[in-house]
């Protein structure tokens, strides 16, 4: 399977929820030192539910498309449910397998979201490795 699927390119070219919120309840930004991809996530939270979300940043197709897909996924969700999102959920959204290097590109948005919402700093998926 090609990692440059039409669906991914669509999200890259016309990302959903791109931009910033004027008064976000949560705003967090991080980059991936390996390739310089950068993502900021802004959240508006009301009664524990994500009312609105925006992302911005720059980077490769995979990182930006994953961020776009993730914002669609979490909008309207309980903030608590975001904690349960895993590496596999992102891979399912992207619909393609990723090698170890590009995996970090794909997971950056979720990492930023979890760090902003819960202060969880590790890479999604790696916390599982530690338990094993």
């Amino acid at each position, binding site marked *: 399977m090609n990692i440059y699927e039409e669906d991914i390119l669509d999200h890259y070219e016309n990302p959903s929820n791109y931009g910033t919120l004027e008064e976000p309840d949560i705003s967090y930004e991080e980059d991936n030192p390996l390739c310089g991809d950068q993502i900021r996530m802004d959240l508006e939270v009301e009664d524990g539910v994500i009312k609105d979300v925006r992302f911005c940043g720059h*980077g490769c197709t995979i990182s930006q498309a994953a961020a776009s897909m993730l914002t669609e996924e979490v909008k309207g969700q309980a903030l608590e449910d975001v904690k349960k999102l895993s590496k596999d959920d992102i891979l399912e959204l992207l619909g393609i397998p990723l090698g170890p290097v590009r995996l970090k590109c794909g997971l950056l948005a979720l990492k930023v979201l979890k760090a902003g919402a819960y202060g969880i700093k590790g890479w999604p998926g790696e916390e599982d490795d530690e338990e094993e």
Partner: protein
Amino acid sequence: MHMHVDRDEFHPLGVDRIRKDFPIFAGDSPIAYLDSAASSQTARCVLEAMDGYYERYRSNIHRGIYQISEEATAAYEDARRKIARFINARRASQVIFTRNTTESINLLAYSWGNANIGPGDEILLTVMEHHSNLVPWQLLAERTGATLRFIEVTDEGLLQLDDLDKLLTDRTKLVAITHVSNVLGTINPVREITAAAHSIGATVLIDAAQSVPHLPVDVEALDCDFLAFSGHKMCGPTGVGVLYGKRNLLEDMQPFLGGGSMIRAVQRERSTYADVPARFEAGTPAIAEAIGLGHAVDYLDGIGLDAVHAHEQQIIDYAHQKLREIDGITIYGPKPRIKAGVITFNLEGIHPHDLAGVLDTTGVAVRAGHHCAQPLMQHYGVIATARASFYLYNTMQDVDRLYDGALKAQNLLARRQG
């Protein structure tokens, strides 16, 4: 005026024959391997030499009182002699085996640096250093209170040597510079810089990781005090590198790692240390790899580094000519003819990771990222670039495949703008 290169021009090297020496290029659809600046491919004769050790005389070196250990010792020391000859060192004992360039420089930063650098001393580097010739000196500066100074880079990708006289002061104790930039391919005038550094009494290290594999390098002619390079970038195996040093300097240096092989006599509380080079080779070294590197050096010697360099110049000329045709390309660094076989570039609107990803789908391997040279990336105001690097086994067809893959990436990806 740029020279026109005919794609089908005669190769001085006989590249078809050379490619047969590298198992990875066998088969019907070989990879267009354009990442030799990161790590080269391994010549078959190197693999056979290492197999020969493992199959016929595998044993530890230096202490075995039996035939195959003596054989292994002889092969290991023979490799040291070959490498010394290759860089024109006077004695084999001036060649210390390490893991790679990084370890060579760390060895130097501890064993020489701790004893010779103090508060207020200055270490002069350049903005184009690989992290391996930057971070060890940052650590040394933290330990000792020394200061780092930098030779800047011009927009064309050359060192700003007008500043050299100002940067070399009576506080400058070490000048540590790369011979060839791993990102830009710039060939620095290290002989002249070494002479200037010596005139104010500074010691000179040359990071030759990108030069020893590609150009004739003569440590006597350069007159450098130390020189470091890696086996895996010169058709040799991973896990073995070299630190060359002037004899008197090496002899004054304290050990880096302690353990077996590096001692003369050990008592409960203290030890005395072996002579150079054993003093710096604690523990069982990468024996097979050192033997392999000796054969890699024989292989390159047989072809001739002048011929290798000429071949790469021809390819880099053609690569510049071809890639410049692409709309929206930015090529970083010097023009061909004054640089080594490296071309670093970006395509407008395409992240280099995506470019490398699309190229990979067409069997073209390039590197994308900061190339372990973040200060240089900052100088150019970019986060990452794509880099194609060439070696003796690359062909004009490899360049064509790079060009075609870049166009494919543009068709696929350069749609979203703004």
